[in-house]
């Protein structure tokens, strides 16, 4: 547990927030909560859209990020996934949470584009 302002946050929610920040600073992608807000991490006072964070019995947290990609993407989806995943691993390391971070999955759910009629 750690303090963020006046709030206590679990490692799970901290990692989810770092995942949300990694998505936010990555060009060409946005988080999606999916149908009925299915992909959310809800902490005591923090809600992170597009991120599922699941803690196992050993305290390791698996992260699943759900993304929308803007059309046309400038790099392949695998490269985008590696960029987001790399950012999360680096920021988890800087926050001293690298031991807690488990598998990081990236799921591309949709493409956003302006389309002409037809």
């Amino acid at each position: 547990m750690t303090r963020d302002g006046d709030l206590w946050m679990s490692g799970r929610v901290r990692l989810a927030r770092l995942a949300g920040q990694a998505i936010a600073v990555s060009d060409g992608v946005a988080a999606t909560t999916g149908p009925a807000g299915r992909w959310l991490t809800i902490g005591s006072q923090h809600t992170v859209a597009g991120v599922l964070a699941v803690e196992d019995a050993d305290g390791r947290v698996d992260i699943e990020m759900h993304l929308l990609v803007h059309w046309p993407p400038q790099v392949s989806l695998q490269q985008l996934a590696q960029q987001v995943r790399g950012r999360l691993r680096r920021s988890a390391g800087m926050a001293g949470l690298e031991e807690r971070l488990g598998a990081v999955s990236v799921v591309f759910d949709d493409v956003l584009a302006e389309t002409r009629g037809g």
Partner: protein
Amino acid sequence: MSEAEKTVRAASGAASSKQVDGRVPLESELGQTTIGESVVTRVAGLAAREVPGVHALGSGAARAIGSVTQRVGLGDLRTQGVSVESGEKEAAVDLTLVIDYGESIPRIADAVRSQVIKRVEGITGLAVMEVNITVNDLYFPGDDEPVEAPRVA
């Protein structure tokens, strides 16, 4: 093996390795990347629309229904006229096109095929084994204008 046999084998391979839930997972040392089949479908549809001379995608009935469902927020132009079968490494794409009158259909079909292969392979990493194109209509300028009802004296 003949080209036709290769195509059939490739297409059946793509279908047999299809993942459940319409998703294509890609394992790496750092984690799994999953590309939804709807993403592959949308990439193919958007790529086809990028080619000048392609007026629309979908059959006449699909477009008529699509225009209604889109107005009520249910339709999606990005997937209209596009069908994709994808596996772990391969994909096969079927497209139904409406082409602008006056354009060369073989030239447009070739351009669409190249663009779809370039986009799908570049963006998703899947090898596109085939792009089947059906041109089911031509668009004439003025087709969209409402027809005035004849006046009866």
